[in-house]
């Protein structure tokens, strides 16, 4: 952030055509120096924290029944084992596929319905009871119904995932579109913008931070969908591993499978963040903005 601000400031102040000078970038506030930690130590603190935690876990875990809790070293070994047995990678990639397809469908459908509800008061009134109802219903209970509709394959898992994720995306999108400032809509009327242009040029770009907030919440819910669907529906993939290892009390392997599923979620989050930066290149830069 500070690099971007410095860059813009230099370019502006060197331009001779400028009559109204941009006020200088605010100086970086000098932070009071911490007496407890040096800067390097502060940076390393998260890593140190994790290492200490793993150490305590290793010591405590070594003293109790391995069925109740496996030690980190055992979990590490379990990773290597299930990878060698060819169980890990297919389960991981399958989870990524279900997540991608489920969240993708939820995103397309959710954003479309959200925009419609955000722009049309009628659509908002027609659809909001359902959104409110499904948002608060524990939809995972509908999984058996999904199995009846879609069978026990990939499609059913994608359906469960999308069904869980879509509601937050709808709500956030419609809220973001509805929050479009009236002043920008006035501006669009001055230049005779049609509804298509208002949506494309104003409402959706304005809603992008909201949409991505919805996608992040949707991603968390989708991950529940991915694992639960595999546990309940197909007994394949990561959910299948979790179910099987749990049933056979292989705690170290169970934890390894769970950690892998959080990796899936983390990768999803990183991809979302990359897409967000590409979709909203102005968003980072706008923080450089001077007052007034």
């Amino acid at each position: 952030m500070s690099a971007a601000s410095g860059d813009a400031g230099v370019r502006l102040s060197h331009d001779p055509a400028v009559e109204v000078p941009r006020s200088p970038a605010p100086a970086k506030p000098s932070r009071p120096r911490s007496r407890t930690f040096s800067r390097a130590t502060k940076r390393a603190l998260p890593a140190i924290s994790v290492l200490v935690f793993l150490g305590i876990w290793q010591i405590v875990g070594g003293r109790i029944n391995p069925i109740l809790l496996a030690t980190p070293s055992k979990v590490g070994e379990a990773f290597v084992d299930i990878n060698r047995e060819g169980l890990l990678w297919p389960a991981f990639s399958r989870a990524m596929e279900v997540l991608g397809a489920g969240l993708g469908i939820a995103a397309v459908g959710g954003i479309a319905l959200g925009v419609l509800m955000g722009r049309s008061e009628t659509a908002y009134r027609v659809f909001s009871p359902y959104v409110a109802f499904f948002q608060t219903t524990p939809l995972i209970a509908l999984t058996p119904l999904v199995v009846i509709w879609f069978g026990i394959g990939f499609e059913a898992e994608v359906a469960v995932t999308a069904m869980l994720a879509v509601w937050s995306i709808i709500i956030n999108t419609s809220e973001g579109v509805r929050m479009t400032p009236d002043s920008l809509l006035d501006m669009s009327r001055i230049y005779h913008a049609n509804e298509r242009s208002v949506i494309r040029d104003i409402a959706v770009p304005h809603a992008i931070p909201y949409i991505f907030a919805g996608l992040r919440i949707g991603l968390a819910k989708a991950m529940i969908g991915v694992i639960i669907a595999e546990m309940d529906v197909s007994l394949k993939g990561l959910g299948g591993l979790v179910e099987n290892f749990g049933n056979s009390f292989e705690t170290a392997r169970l934890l390894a499978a769970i950690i892998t599923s959080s990796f899936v979620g983390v990768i999803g989050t990183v991809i979302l963040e990359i897409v967000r930066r590409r979709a909203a290149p102005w968003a980072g830069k706008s923080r450089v903005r001077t007052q007034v």
Partner: protein
Amino acid sequence: MKRGGYLVAEDSNGRVARTATASPAVDASVRPRIEIINASKRFPRPDKSGETFTALADVSLSVMQGEFISLIGASGCGKTTLLRMMSGLMPCDDGEIYVSGKPVVGVPASIGFVFQHPELLPWRTVRDNLLFALKQRRMPRELKDRAVAEQLELTNLQAFADYYPGMLSGGMQQRAGLARALVGNPDVLFMDEPLSALDAFTRRQLQQDIAEIIFTTRATTVLVTHEVDEAIFFSDRIVVMGTSPGRVNEVIDVPLPRPRRHSDLIGNPTVAALRDRVLGIVLGVA
């Protein structure tokens, strides 16, 4: 459009019918660019009593082609309401408003509007913000690009064409707002306190630049302001408005050649006398 549903059909039909019979009798060349005839506006009171208060009562005003007028008055005098009615953002309850000889029903075809805050699209570069004003025009892309390039040059923004608004200072943003308002070569330019959010030095500089740019384009301009000095600096005529109900108190001529420069106005006795007079009316002591 969702929020544009205020166009009352029978109202518009009635007005269209009236101008159709009236306009042939009037020579278009001498007809004022803007005509306001007995316009009124009432708003419902916020307490849900069902009563209304009168924001503007029976306002009549004409603005000639190329003229610069300012609407000035205390808050609540309806100056912004009047501007929004002229620009078609808000319908009037009684009376008629004509822009370029046509009754105002919705936003007139060729106007520009500079808002109090720049209202640029943060997700578009300065260049694309200007293009947005031309988006609905049926003209080849090359002509649009050329019009935008020329306008950027006129407003001294060439170097910032590819900047996002968030990277510009407030003064530069408002300059871009003016460029967008002018890029379509509008018949009428409306400005709603466009400089009120800027510091005094930026404001003076921008006032001079705007005065010159507008003088070059010869656009008819209506400015809403609460700064007496700003009104005197820009205007051919100053419309001093009063409150409860909002109305036109007095219209004052500014007999100084345009475009003006602040340095030329220092110590000018005409300016001093005008300032006293306008302030006297605004403060209710004249």
